[in-house]
């Protein structure tokens, strides 16, 4: 065994080890509502997913589109439910319209070119509002994040998120 061989083995091993932790730059936008019980329920899952997948290359961002969501209310929710990622207010629905979210919680995963590669539920815990599965059988967001981290090519996929409908901005000038 010569020294060249050893070097290549070492370099290869470093790449293999590092590969698991290197994800191409992606963002996970998580639409949330602090008055939505389904959003509240998923804070635990989101903490776990963040701990497992978040990195400098894979960022989680909480987006609060409800018009009642003041900066104070958002900060209180982030603190109480220990959300480990930054949270932004979207009262004008700029992010809602850009990313096409209709429900909280709903996630939209975008790649480095800001193209959406996944939109929908975090997992299939809820069959519908009030019907909570006792055995979760589809972990859609985790699958997408796994694929990103494994550099598996992805084509855009969409699922139906179950939760609280995002009330559209008022379409009459009543206020």
């Amino acid at each position, binding site marked *: 065994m010569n020294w060249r061989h050893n070097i290549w083995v070492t370099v290869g091993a470093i790449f293999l080890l590092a590969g698991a932790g290197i994800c191409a730059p992606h963002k996970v936008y998580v639409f949330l509502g602090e008055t939505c019980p389904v959003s509240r329920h998923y804070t*635990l899952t989101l903490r776990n997913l963040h701990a497992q997948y978040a990195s400098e290359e894979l960022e989680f961002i909480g987006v609060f589109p409800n018009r009642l969501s003041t900066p104070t209310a958002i900060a209180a929710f982030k603190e*109480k439910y220990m959300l480990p990622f930054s949270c932004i207010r979207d009262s004008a629905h700029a992010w809602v319209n850009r990313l096409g979210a209709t429900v909280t919680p709903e996630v939209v995963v975008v790649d480095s070119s800001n193209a959406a590669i996944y939109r929908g539920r975090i997992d299939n815990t809820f069959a519908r509002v*009030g*019907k909570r599965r006792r*055995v979760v059988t589809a972990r859609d967001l985790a699958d997408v994040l796994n694929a990103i981290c494994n550099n598996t090519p992805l084509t855009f996929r969409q699922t139906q998120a179950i939760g609280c*409908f995002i009330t559209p901005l008022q379409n*009459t000038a009543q206020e």
Partner: protein
Amino acid sequence: MRLTALSILALLCAMASPSAQTVTFGEHISPIIYNNCTSCHRTGEIGAMPLTNYSEVAAHATMIQHVTQNRYMPPWKPDPTYSQHIGERTLTQSEIDLIRNWVDAGFPQGDLALEAPLPTFPTGSALGTPDLVLTMAEPFAIRGDNEDQYQVFVLPTGLAEPRAIAAVEFRPGNRQIVHHALLAVDITGTARQNDLETPEYGYESFGGFDSPIAAILPSYTPGTRTVAFPHGVGQILPQNADLLVQVHYAPWPIAESDQSSVNIFFKKESLEREVGLIAIVPFSLNDIKAFFGNFGGRDIEQIIAQLEASGAELPPNLDDLIDFAASANDLFGAINPMAKIEIDSRFVIPAREVKTFRGTLTIDQDISLLSIYLHMHLLGQSWEVYAVDPQGNRTDLVRISDWDFNWQGSYTFTHFQKIAAGSKIHAVTTYDNTIDNPLNPNYPPRTVAWGEKTTDEMLLVAMEYVPYRQGDENIALAPSVGYVARIDFDGDRQRDFDDFVLFAQNFGLSQGDADFQSRFDLNRDGRVDFADFIIFARLFGG
């Protein structure tokens, strides 16, 4: 035509109902929301979305439209067109339509001068000063792991002598996490022992109390109206009894704690009739009692070994009996097995099947029912319970087409329901043990039988009753506070002149008349007559 002027008045009212263009929050939506939703949907209560003013309601408008249209909210499982119970929390179709039209129109605010006043929500007891307050000895910390928790707490009453209960009021300590509570009485000390054997306060038990039970008390769900027993009627709380409270804590993503309490009100008058309990379960309690005896504490295996050794003939459904005997024995103290209970098949729900069971209970004396409590687990889908008297007349008791374990509870009839001797009470239940049932706790499904665990199933109808007395049908089992749905004929949550107009229009009609509607026949004697007017007058107002 009777009462023509009143008919025209009613017609004018109908014509005045608003079209989609004019529905506003102030005038139309605020009374619906404030009187049906806000008691739970305000800060500190279980409803996460606060609904106490225009901007809060408008901010959740689309979700309100969705959950009212699919009737997920307000949560009330029994079908109100089948039978009537106290404290019905349902919206009329016209109220649901109003909400839909209002949201479709962009949820306009309208004139807030017309806004309904927010009801005054009681902060303390809804009944007054309790005679006995039992509080959890210490706060209980939930795990905060997004799983349901069912914890039984033992609250010693320390009563020196038996007392007659007039009403029981459960008061959640942490209203955000307490989802529901079942209450029972133990006089054997078993529950205390269970508590001692676990390191934490209380002990975990999903399907029951894991203890013999001397009585089942009214349960609590959010929005429940506490119902006091009528004059002379009550339940006995034995001396030195332990009150058992099984609290269901909703799945929660962070640690929280709760310290709930129970208010007990004793009868001021002497007790004339004690409330008893009858039940429909999948097996004959008499058979089990005859077979196993009251074996409290003895090992079932040991009993069977002795029986086998003695050469006794073992029943063919021995496995079912063994499964069932443990919990049946717990219920012996609470349930009077009035008659042999028959079910049309073994209580087994095969994997990947939808299964229906039919149970029958024969009533051997005239009785008056006060309430009905239903219990099944996560495979449960539907219930229908009704009585048929010896002449073939049918009394509908409760129907639930979309069973939800989270919203189980006891339902008090608006009036004593007379069940004549010789009647049969039928219970028809359906269970879905396929993968299409998202609540199925087994994935892939496995065959399920009787048991108290989440992954087992149960079938229990428990009914509170007293021996029948002449005139019971006319006794309204009114809630102590709140409005009485029974004479709110127009569904506007007021018992007012408009309801009287509707009642008057139907006065004098009898069963068989084309216009006869049973809802105006308050005493169910087939005629809308003076006797109904007396009931109407008593409930009128408020």
